Every structure is written in C-alpha cells, then in structure tokens.
C-alpha cells in the first residue's frame, strides 16, 4: 500500500498542476496584454479623413472608446468590418480606428466602399504607435475606460460574442 502512495501522490499533484495549466492557458497564440489595467499609451497622429487634423489620445479622455487596429492589407479586418459597422451604428461606444502601416488612399477607398464605422481614424504609418499598444497582428481591439485605462483587449476579428459578453457589459458598468 505504502509503496504506491508516493507515486500516486506525485501523479495526483502533476495532474492537478497540468489541469490548472490547461484551464488557464489562453487560446493558442493569444498573449495577454500587459497593458490591461494600465493607462492607454498616448499618441498624436494625423487623421485619415480630415486633412491637417491631429488625432490625440487625450481627445477621448472622460469617455469610453474602442481602439480598433486595422489595415487594408489585413484580410481578417475585412471579415470584421461588418461587425464594426454594427458596433458603430449601435452608438454604445465610439470606435476609433488606428490605420496601421497602410496606404492612405487605399484606406480612404476602403471606408468609402465598405462604410465607415469610425468616429475618427488615426494614421500610424511608421507603426510606432502600434508598438506602444503592444499590437502584433491586426485586427486588434482595445477597450479604454473614461479614466484612460485599458480594460480589455481582443486579438482577431471582433464578433458578436465579444461585443455582447465582454465589451457592452463593461461599458454599461456591469463588469470592470
């Protein structure tokens, strides 16, 4: 009896550790952003649709906003666009676009053709602002609260599920 107790104990411990690891491991390849709970990185970038205007992160202080990182070179962004239009129409939270390493003319044409869900779009031609936000693949969407703190990040195309379960409840004050 005693002979099996130690190996059994070791096995049980290992099983528990691995079970915890599996339950807590995020989707493959998705990395938790270190930005969550921290102030949103500031930026001052040219506006895509209003020539001469600068979009500043401070402009959004005091209200909720979604920062959506996209580019016309990004296939998933096209897939996501329909959802973004729904979000834009809902009026629940303003969408701010960050056009990442893109061509202005193409980006403008994209919004003309597919519709523009954004309140405003900032142009990050060098990709420097995206690095500050820890962006590693478009599309990525960040939810920022009125205090300017990043509260949620979604990597990949935004779907109805994230919108109803993760974003809206936070904006409506149910979930922090």
């Amino acid at each position: 009896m005693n002979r099996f107790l130690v190996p059994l104990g070791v096995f049980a411990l290992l099983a528990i550790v691995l079970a915890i690891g599996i339950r807590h491991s995020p989707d493959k390849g998705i990395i938790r952003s270190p930005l969550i709970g921290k102030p949103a990185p500031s930026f001052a970038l040219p506006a895509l649709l209003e020539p001469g205007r600068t979009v500043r992160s401070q402009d959004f202080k005091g209200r909720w906003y979604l920062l959506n990182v996209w580019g016309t070179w990004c296939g998933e962004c096209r897939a996501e666009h329909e959802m973004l239009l729904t979000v834009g129409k809902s009026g629940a939270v303003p969408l701010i676009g960050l056009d990442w390493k893109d061509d202005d003319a193409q980006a403008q044409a994209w919004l003309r053709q597919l519709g523009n869900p954004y309140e405003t779009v900032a142009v990050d031609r060098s990709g420097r602002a995206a690095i500050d936000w820890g962006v590693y693949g478009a599309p990525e969407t960040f939810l920022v609260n009125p205090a300017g703190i990043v509260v949620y990040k979604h990597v990949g195309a935004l779907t109805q599920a994230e919108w109803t379960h993760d974003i809206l409840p936070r904006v409506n004050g149910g979930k922090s």
Partner: protein
Amino acid sequence: MKRAAVHTLVLQSLMLFASLGWALDTTVLPDPALQARYVALTHELRCMQCQNEAIADSPVDLAADLRNQVREQLLAGKSDDEIRSWMAARYGDFILFRPRYSWRNAWLWGAPAVLLLVGAWFSWRIVRTRTLLLADDHEPLEEDLRP
C-alpha cells in the same frame, strides 16, 4: 566515385547552410560594442507574429520595426535592461526569450533545486535501507560455503 559523392554531399549541405545564413538584417551600428549588443538583443527578443523566431531572424514587418527600436534605443544610450523592460512593458514577458526572475515564476526557477533535494533524500533512504539490510544479513552466501 564514392569520394566524389561524399564531396558533393558536403558541398551541398554547406550551400544549404550558407543560404540559411543569408543576412536578413543588414544593420551595422557605428561602434562594434554597440553592434555586438544589438546582435545579442535582437536574438533574445521574440518575434510576436511568428512567436518561435527571434526578431533578428524574422522577415515580418513588425520584427523589422522592433529591430529598428532596438537600434534607435542603443544609439540613444539605453542599457540592455532598459530596452528589455521597454519591450516587456508593451508585449509582456513573453517577448523575452530569456525569462526574468519574478515572484510569480519563482517556483519554476526553484524547481530544479527542490527536485534535486527530493532526489537526494530518496537516494539517501534507499542506500540506508540497503546498508541496514546488509548488516542484518547473516545468511552466508552459497559461494562462501564452498570449500
């Protein structure tokens, strides 16, 4: 003929490896010491898009942007640790191929020492039981009984 075949094979493999060594990153910093640090740092930062490659070896755009950041910050006089922290603040510790010690991962760092101690305790116990068994063993071996 055999020799020639071996030579061809060696040559082919050399060519294969030479092609792998083609520099993707042709950055050269003015100071050799800075250059050495640049090479070391870009090899220990993960490319977040390809995830199993260092930014030094990755052809994607983001890796080039991050290499550029390393270069600019080195030229601005930042220390290696400051650059690592800068990267980790944006992309998390995941970007560091060489993880940093923290209380969250202390158990992981401590595990080898703990396992070594556990192993030492087990072997001590086994050796002790066997020694005791031997001391208790008064039965003479068959060989010893032979004239």
